[in-house]
């Protein structure tokens, strides 16, 4: 089972959580990023995600390793990111992290999505309802992050 994946297929939270299954697990947390219908008051028609897939999967794997190294009680990490055209409400990313007990999971989850937005080579273009489109550049401070 791949734990770190970039895919054009629709994402299922359930299915990503299932990748962590083992009897020693007592708690799982997930982060689910979805496509919002508006940004900065402007109606969005859809998003177009583009990735450098091989490096994206490599950096996702790296984030998993960083999490397990910082929080040794974390047992498993799975991160799946969807690319291509995503409609409003669609799930763009699912991060799932498991442990025997819940303590480390919340900080680990926050770290996971923060790092993803920092280092994973994936980009999104907003296509607006009023025509026009723009590549979102969070790193340049042009736009508030999800």
């Amino acid at each position: 089972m791949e734990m770190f994946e970039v895919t054009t297929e629709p994402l299922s939270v359930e299915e990503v959580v299932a990748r962590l299954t083992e009897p020693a697990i007592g708690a799982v947390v997930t982060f689910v990023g979805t496509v919002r219908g508006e940004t900065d008051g402007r109606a969005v028609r859809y998003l177009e995600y583009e990735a450098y897939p091989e490096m994206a999967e490599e950096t996702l794997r790296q984030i998993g390793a960083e999490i397990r190294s910082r929080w040794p009680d974390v047992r498993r990490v799975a991160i799946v990111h969807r690319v291509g055209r995503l409609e409003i409400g669609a799930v763009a990313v699912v991060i799932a992290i498991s442990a025997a007990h819940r303590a480390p999971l919340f900080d680990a989850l926050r770290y996971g999505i923060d790092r993803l937005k920092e280092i994973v080579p994936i980009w999104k273009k907003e296509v607006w309802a009023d025509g026009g489109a723009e590549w979102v550049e969070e790193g340049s401070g042009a736009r508030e992050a999800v």
Partner: protein
Amino acid sequence: MNGERGTINIRVKFFAAPREALGTNEVTVSLPAGATVDELLKLLTERYPALRPYTRFLSVAVNRAYAGMHAELHDGDEVACLPPVGGG
């Protein structure tokens, strides 16, 4: 270091806004052996002026790992020009 400086070929990948500005997602360029990332970027902006508005925001990956501006390139390297990422 036998004094001979041959030529290396580098595959360069583009994504997102700069990819659209250039109208291509990959080019191959030749550079003198021992060239650095910095020198590659200079060559690219000379050859592709459309890249200019983006260069100061670009990060660079060599063979799928982030690399500094002074990293030395080798024949066959895959270099990616990465605008600020926006996943999630």
